């Protein structure tokens, strides 16, 4: 049933569609027909009328007279002029408005600039002038400089180069020209950063006396130094030879030996303005930095920094004191060699005038007392200037050898002479020791070398067993006492015309004579072991 209904529906739809299509077709056709009708009508009209048929317009003379062409032209012309004028007027008006606007704008800019300047002044902003700008300016074109600035010097202050005198000066009428402010410090710090910022400041810096050291215009010395040189400037105040020296801290450079950096320029070591360290030093002197950073790389010097810090036996004066190098050296100048504060031996004795604790433990003898009590001194101490004083044998900066000796020396009392390191023979000839029979030495019985007897055998003795390397009351630096296992035994040396005698702990009293031998022989009976 259903399918039958569906079929009827489909047929009805199809029929509907066909009918609609037909209607649509028909309506299109009618349109076409109407157009066709119009076209045909036009064609028929065309055929019926002659296209070349002339139609005349009839104008009367009166009508012609009425038409005044010139007048019309005039009228037209006026009208045009009117129009142009109005346009020009309009343009003029616009231009005027523009100019006034421009004026207003510039006025505004000026006001703004002024405002900015005022602001800058308020905020203490730096005036803008740069080094590059300064360089661009052609100095040859300088014209109107006052005579006092001629000829121009090597280094010039930038405002001076830029002729920006008004940065500092207000008027040039008075002499000296009036400055912007009387407070020089304030004036300088407008552009320059503050200089008294660190722990220690130079007094003129602290007090704002910048121009005392700097020339505000030009100078031949870098840093606009108001003087012929840095040292010249410094020594104005710091020369102890000047009676009216301003500073309490004075130095005397008028000496025989001068420290090169001090001679060259004070600022090699000192800051001119402010420093973290005492005496305005550039670096900390307490850690040996200042001195040794140079003295580790100087040619002809050993690396003192490493030497001082790494030496097995350290000298307290340079290692343990506060003043370090300055304990002994005058860093500026001195009349004593190696810019020492005193003559070398005296220098050493300033500390060694008492028993001093050795850095490696133990006590060091009071060498001053020893020298005072014993009149016969070892050559290097006696002729300190020529032979090197204490430093001939000791290295004041430290050493790997005990007693900071420059070279190793045996610590033992006994030992094989050949194996022992005898520092003494750097200066003394050892053939007067080593030859069994000789006349080279005074210590002989006949020609039997008693030096040889003492040093040759298995129990050969060190030089220091009998000789005191510093001073003695006997001649030939014979010791008063020899130290054997912690006990001091006197040598009891007696010198005679051609010989002498000894009665130490080692043996009984033995005599020797260079002319008439006492023949005590090589093999002695020893009382001690």
């Amino acid at each position, binding site marked *: 049933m259903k399918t039958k209904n569906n079929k009827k529906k489909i047929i009805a739809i199809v029929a509907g569609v066909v009918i609609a299509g037909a209607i649509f077709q028909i309506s299109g056709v009618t349109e076409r027909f109407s157009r066709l009708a119009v076209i045909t009508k036009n064609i028929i009209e065309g055929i019926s009328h002659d296209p070349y048929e002339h139609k005349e317009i009839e104008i009367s003379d009166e009508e012609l007279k009425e038409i005044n062409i010139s007048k019309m032209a005039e009228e037209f012309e006026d009208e045009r002029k009117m129009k142009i004028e109005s346009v020009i007027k309009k343009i003029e008006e616009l231009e005027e408005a523009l100019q006034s606007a421009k004026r207003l704008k510039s006025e505004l800019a000026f006001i703004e600039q002024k405002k900015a300047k005022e602001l800058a002044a308020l905020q203490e902003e730096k005036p803008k002038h740069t080094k590059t700008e300064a360089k661009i300016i052609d100095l040859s074109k300088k014209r109107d400089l006052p005579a006092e600035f001629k000829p121009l010097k090597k280094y010039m202050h930038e405002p001076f180069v830029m002729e920006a005198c008004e940065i500092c000066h207000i008027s040039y009428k008075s002499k000296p020209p009036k400055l912007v402010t009387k407070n020089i410090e304030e004036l300088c710090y407008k552009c320059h950063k503050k200089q008294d910022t660190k722990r220690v400041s130079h007094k003129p810096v602290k007090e704002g006396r910048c121009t005392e050291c700097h020339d505000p215009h030009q100078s031949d010395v870098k840093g606009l130094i108001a003087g012929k040189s840095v040292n010249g400037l410094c020594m104005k105040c710091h020369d102890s030879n000047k009676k009216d020296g301003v500073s309490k801290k004075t130095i005397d450079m008028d000496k025989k030996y001068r420290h090169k950096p001090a001679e060259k320029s004070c600022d090699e070591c000192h800051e001119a303005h402010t420093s973290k360290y005492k005496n305005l030093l550039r670096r900390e002197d307490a850690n040996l930095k200042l001195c040794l950073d140079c003295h580790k790389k100087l040619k002809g010097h050993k690396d003192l920094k490493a030497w001082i810090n790494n030496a097995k036996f350290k000298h307290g004066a340079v290692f343990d004191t506060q003043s370090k190098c300055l304990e002994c050296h005058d860093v500026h100048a001195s009349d004593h060699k190696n810019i020492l504060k005193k003559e070398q031996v005296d220098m050493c004795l300033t500390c060694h005038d008492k028993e001093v604790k050795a850095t490696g433990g133990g006590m060091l003898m009071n060498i001053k007392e020893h020298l005072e009590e014993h009149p016969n001194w070892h050559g290097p101490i006696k002729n300190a200037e020529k032979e090197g004083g204490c430093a001939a044998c000791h290295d004041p900066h430290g050493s790997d050898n005990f007693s900071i000796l420059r070279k190793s020396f045996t610590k033992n009392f006994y030992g094989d002479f050949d194996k022992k390191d005898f520092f003494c023979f750097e200066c003394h000839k050892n053939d007067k020791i080593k030859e069994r029979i000789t006349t080279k030495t005074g210590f002989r019985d006949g020609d039997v070398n008693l030096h040889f007897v003492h040093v040759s055998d298995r129990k050969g003795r060190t030089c220091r067993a009998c000789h005191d390397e510093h001073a003695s009351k006997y001649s030939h630096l014979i010791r008063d006492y020899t130290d*054997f296992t912690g006990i*001091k*035994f006197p040598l009891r040396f007696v010198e005679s015309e051609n010989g002498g005698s000894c009665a130490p*702990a080692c043996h009984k009293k033995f005599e020797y004579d260079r002319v008439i031998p006492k023949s005590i022989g090589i093999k002695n*009976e020893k*009382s001690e072991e």
Partner: protein
Amino acid sequence: MKRARSSMKKPVAGWLFLLFFINSLYAQNSYFELLRPIDRSVYQSDFISIAIKMKNDSAQRLEIMNENNEIIAIKKVTPKRQSYCQTINLHYGENRIKVTAFKNDKELSESFATVYYASPVYKRFKYPPTGFKERAFHSAENEKECAKCHDMVSNEKKGVAFEDVTKSSCYGCHKSITSKKYAHAPAVNWLCTSCHDNSSGESRFGYSEAINQNCYSCHKKKKELWMNKRFFHEPFDTGRCNRCHDPHASDDRMFLREPVNYLCTACHAEKSGLAEEKSDSVCPGSGEPSCVRCHDPHASDKGFFLIDKKRVSNE
């Protein structure tokens, strides 16, 4: 005095003391008093000091005699001088000392004292008879008496020897201790307190029984050498170097108390004469036949303290 009192606790010692007291009562005379030596004292050194205190001025002369009535010393008595001293030598064993006071060759009175010089070496003299004992001389009481004439305080500077040894306060009384062929450096330099350091406590100048630590303070290498050995000779082991060596002076090498063979056979009596019998070919080394040519008297790695040949060749 302290020692005397403490010995009283023992009945035997008490009897002895009584005996001594009675003896001293008999010996007591009105002319002089024999202060030192105290009767029945033992000495370790071969000399002693005799100290006499005068009671009045009647005596003119004092004679000191030994047990054979041989005069050892004569002291002239000067008026008003109270004390007299004399150093005399001893022989091993008992020594009887007689002191007699004279006036115009007339005997006034006499005193006796018997002392014993004990040898640390010879067995015969090692042990004194009963009743004899060591008495420390440097006691406070004695020193008070001596201090009238002598400086009883050591003037030795620690660690510094005398430039002039006669300046030593010990030298005056003890000088004979070094008057021998070989003298030991500390002794001859009068560094007495380096050993006599009162470490034993008996006397102000006592010394340690085991003296070796004092010796080794100088003889370091020897210590090193011997201490590493396997066998130690008894005197060495107990640290009594001074049993064989005289630390002051000796007529023999190495400061031996006796010539070496005598020294060895003092203990090893059964080996007496053995070294001399051995022919030279048997003994290594050179020199006279001697015990120490084969044996090391201190220490050795080998049995019988035989010497290491290497060391012999090195020597």
